[in-house]
């Protein structure tokens, strides 16, 4: 019995650390008129961060960057339920919901994976509007100040050109 309890206790963090399968979000875009899919991880991400320049060296510890953004012609063309697996994953012990703004038909949530010494193990943003849904998931060690600095890091404003050709999966799901 004691052994079983120890095994169960050991299994909880192991389960919590399992990576989220971003394929499950593809259902969201079934009726989308435009989409932006970005998946950067492993060597490709290391390659990308090495080309960012010294000013943005704080991003060199990232282990995964995932963006799914879908735009719809009409309201109600995606199911909130398709976001449920991600929200369930973000409810695990590691993640804390730090922002939850709900308006009539819009929700914005920010989740952080807090680590000791003012460090973050990840950042997730879920933004759902009637005609647009965006999920940003950044995994890897970040300083809390880096998140605040994001707007001042020389990252250009890039207008999202929705459309099939802009589906930027570096790793084909």
């Amino acid at each position, binding site marked *: 019995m004691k052994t079983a309890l120890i095994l169960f206790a050991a299994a909880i963090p192991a389960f919590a650390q399992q990576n989220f399968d971003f394929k499950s979000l593809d259902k969201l875009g079934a009726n989308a008129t435009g989409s*932006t899919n*970005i998946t*950067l991880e492993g060597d*490709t*991400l290391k*390659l*990308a*961060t*090495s*080309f*960012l320049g010294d000013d943005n060296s704080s*991003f060199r510890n990232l282990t995964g*960057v*995932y*963006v799914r*953004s879908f735009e719809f012609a009409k309201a109600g063309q995606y199911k909130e339920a398709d976001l449920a697996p991600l929200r369930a994953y973000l409810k695990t012990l590691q993640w804390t919901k730090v*922002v939850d*703004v709900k*308006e009539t038909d*819009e929700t*914005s949530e*920010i989740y952080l994976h807090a680590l000791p010494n003012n460090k973050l193990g990840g*950042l997730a*943003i879920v*933004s759902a509007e009637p005609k647009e849904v*965006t999920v*940003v998931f*950044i995994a890897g060690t970040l300083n809390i100040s880096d*998140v605040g600095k*994001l*707007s001042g*890091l020389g*990252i*250009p*404003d*890039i207008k*999202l050109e929705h459309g099939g050709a802009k589906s*930027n999966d*570096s790793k084909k799901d």
Partner: protein
Amino acid sequence: MNLDDELKAALRREPAPADFAAKVLAKTTLAKTTLAKTRGSQARVLPFWRPPVTLAIAAALTLAALVPPAVYRYREQRRALEARDQLIAALSITKVQLQHVRERIQNTRHKI
């Protein structure tokens, strides 16, 4: 003249000219010298490691050794630049989303 006499006359032994041996020796020496000269000049133009086939093979091997690494480097660089652009796009979207959330929070505060 009968047939016997004609044959004897035709087959009679005649002494060689006095300079016959010298002429033959001279011609033999000339032939040897010419042959040696021809061989020598061929050796100078095309040594054993310079026939066209050998050169072609060497060129092909050199190309085979140099081109694939260059192509690999070019592809890797292109992949890195594409990845960097994607990362910048992802961070840009993150920035926009964070600003969007901040604006919503501010709007909510104003309403309160």
